[in-house]
């Protein structure tokens, strides 16, 4: 069993806004092992971006506040660091790439200079060496004519190339973990395929772990080893990618899958939407966050928050759902290992 590079336990983050306090992340725990890709899946507002941004320490702390939890990178605590200490690991041991490369890169600096800057600040390299290394990194991310491109400005690049440049920058200090926050959401599908392929390849050659944030289950299916499904600030299910897709153990996971067309869905089988909207995080529900939209909701679900139940020990498949209770009713298509005599539910 490889060791975990990152261990997050019970992370909670709140924001003070003039409408009240938003409890954006409510007790999130997960690990990432070396060389593994963890996908965090959820819809807008579920807290997935806030989770990773607070790990990186890039949430402005006056409105934001980490109200609980521990995060350890290679055994060292990374929350509650001073900004000097945080600078040493941010960008160095953990790299991050963002959704919109156009706004994430400085439009007034050349691409080469921006990558070189990382090296000069963190590795103390001289300007010329850093720039040469920047060109190497651009080549690694398959940007053609890298030496010419390094002298260009972001506006001269297309979306896909900018994303490659951003990946190159994040690799500059050989991080052991790369956090990718919706890296391909703004890209065309053919470019997305290229970028995802690039990320997989880099993961192999650099032996990096990746946390991939996305709302697209298809991207998860392509890239992830493990998946954590988030809803209303909590992880409702986590496990290997096969378990999530073929042995879904939470109604929200089922709901997400049923709302997407796959190549097997013909027009006779309708897409099943999830009705309603996510709960108000100013006053989050005391019970299960998914209660108001769950087609299998039970009376207890409203006020009692289900604990994270371990379903399969060796793969750490967990689910937060009262339907996992041995006495709970049978739900078609839901993986309920506590109910002994039933046969395995339909996979996918």
């Amino acid at each position: 069993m490889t060791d975990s590079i990152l261990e997050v336990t019970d992370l909670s983050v709140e924001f003070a806004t003039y409408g009240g306090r938003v409890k954006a992340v409510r007790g999130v725990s997960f690990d990432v092992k070396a060389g593994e890709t963890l996908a965090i899946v959820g819809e807008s507002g579920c807290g997935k971006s806030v989770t990773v941004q607070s790990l990186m320490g890039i949430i402005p702390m006056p409105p934001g506040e980490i109200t609980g939890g521990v995060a350890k990178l290679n055994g060292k605590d990374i929350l509650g660091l001073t900004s000097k200490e945080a600078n040493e690991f941010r960008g160095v041991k953990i790299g991050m790439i963002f959704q919109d490369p156009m706004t994430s890169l400085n439009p007034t600096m050349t691409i080469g200079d921006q990558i070189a800057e990382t090296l000069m600040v963190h590795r103390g390299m001289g300007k010329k060496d850093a720039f040469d290394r920047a060109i190497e990194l651009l080549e690694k991310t398959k940007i053609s004519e890298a030496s010419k491109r390094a002298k260009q400005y972001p506006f001269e690049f297309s979306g896909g190339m900018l994303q490659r440049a951003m990946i190159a920058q994040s690799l500059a200090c050989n991080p052991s973990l790369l956090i990718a926050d919706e890296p391909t959401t703004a890209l065309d599908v053919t470019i997305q395929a290229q970028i995802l392929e690039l990320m997989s390849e880099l993961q192999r050659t650099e032996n990096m772990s990746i946390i991939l944030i996305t709302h697209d289950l298809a991207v998860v299916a392509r890239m992830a080893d493990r998946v954590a499904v988030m809803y209303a600030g909590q992880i409702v299910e986590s496990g290997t990618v096969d378990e999530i897709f073929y042995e879904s153990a939470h109604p929200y996971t089922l709901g997400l899958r049923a709302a997407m067309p796959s190549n097997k869905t013909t027009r006779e089988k309708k897409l099943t939407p999830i009705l309603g909207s996510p709960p108000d995080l100013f006053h989050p529900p005391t019970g299960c966050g998914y209660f108001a939209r769950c087609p299998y909701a039970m009376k207890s679900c409203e006020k009692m928050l289900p604990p994270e139940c371990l379903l399969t020990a060796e793969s750490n498949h967990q689910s937060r759902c009262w339907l996992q209770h041995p006495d709970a009713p049978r739900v078609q298509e839901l993986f309920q290992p506590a109910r002994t005599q039933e046969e395995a539910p339909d996979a996918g």
Partner: protein
Amino acid sequence: MTDSTLLKTQLQAVSNLDFSPSDTVQSAEQISRPSLSYWQDAWIRLKKNTRAIVSLYIVIGLALFTLVGPILWQVDPALQDLNQLSQAPSLPKQAIFVEEHTRWEGIVLENFPAEPEAFLDVLPAPTNLRTAEAATTQAVRIVWDPVVGAGGYAVYRNQHLPESINDLGLPLGTKLAGNEVSYEDRLNIEGRDYYYSIVSTDGYDESDSYITLKVTPDLAITKTEALSRGLITEESIVANGETIDLEFHPFGTDYLGRDMLARLMEGARVSLFIGIVAPFLYVMFGIFYGGFAGYFGGNLDAILMRFADFVVALPFLLFMILFKIAFGIGPGESGVLPMLIALVLLGWPATARLVRGQVLQIRTQGYIEAARLLGAKDHYLIIRHIIPNTMGVILVTLTFAVPAAIFTEAFLSFIGMGVAPPTPSWGSMCNEGVKTMLSHPHELFFPALFISTTVLAFNLLGDGLTEALDSRMRSRE
């Protein structure tokens, strides 16, 4: 199997679970919060901004000051109160009634020589300098004891205690006989401290020693004066020595004795008239111009905007002067109209640009295309869709245009290119106040305070409005 046992033990610890189904989804589409229109939301935001609300109150206060003030404080701003020239702000002063002035004969001693009998080396100062009777602003009569060897006396008056023989102050006059030991001062006496000094002379030189008396005359007024100023009526019976309240000048008076408060109110009218009417006019024009250019786009837009650029390049001050000449207004005449016209003619491009930008942006929004598809005509689109969405920008522009115009007017009047006396405006009041800045600072302080407060209040209000209106209702979840 071990897994499910684990699970069972984990969960079975929780008892009292009710597994019956629950209806949840029907409330999914409810919106619980009350509906807020754009303006209501903006108002709520504005109220939370303390600075903006305070500024709003100041602006409202100013409006009341200008419009209602003259009704409550009915003092003619042109009326001169000669008793109280350059009066600092104070509580109402009182004056004593006196008879009309009659010439004072003075005191001439009989048994004292008019010419000195012998010339002394050192001529002492007179002694026992005192006032002959109560000193009033009508006249101050002083009397002293004669000096042996004096052939005359020189009388000086200063506003502070003299420090040396060279600091005696204003020479009021000289008595040319040793036995004339009195003097009546009638020169611009105010109700303040004076220091009279007497120096003996022997007819040729003045001595080096002097005596000083501090006198604070009381304010005096004659019956005829009081009558003419409406302080008493025909029938009132007043005796000399009785006091009467003079006109109250809560903010003091200026160098001509005019009531500052009344002038400030009148000045407010002029300043605010220009400061509000001019921006209103040029913002209106700018809206049409910019809206037109933005909506139709293309070459028309290009031409219109180039013309606007040209107007921006014109020098404002030069045009002011040109207009003044063109309108045939000489120096000394009030220049309100040319200033208004110059402001309007030269101030519109900024608004036009802003509105044009806003219109260009709105044109790309989906709802414009949707409305076109539904068969909307151009004027419907403009009135129903585009203008309501530019209202925010327009309002903010207006709120910032007003203080700019007020300040411009004040500045021009200050340098003499704007409103001319006797029409008061805050700027010209500042101009007059600068002359007496060191001795009577209140004449400069009040108009300057009013200008600064007004401009600041409008600017802060504009800031608050921008914030309140601009955080548009784009709540993305």
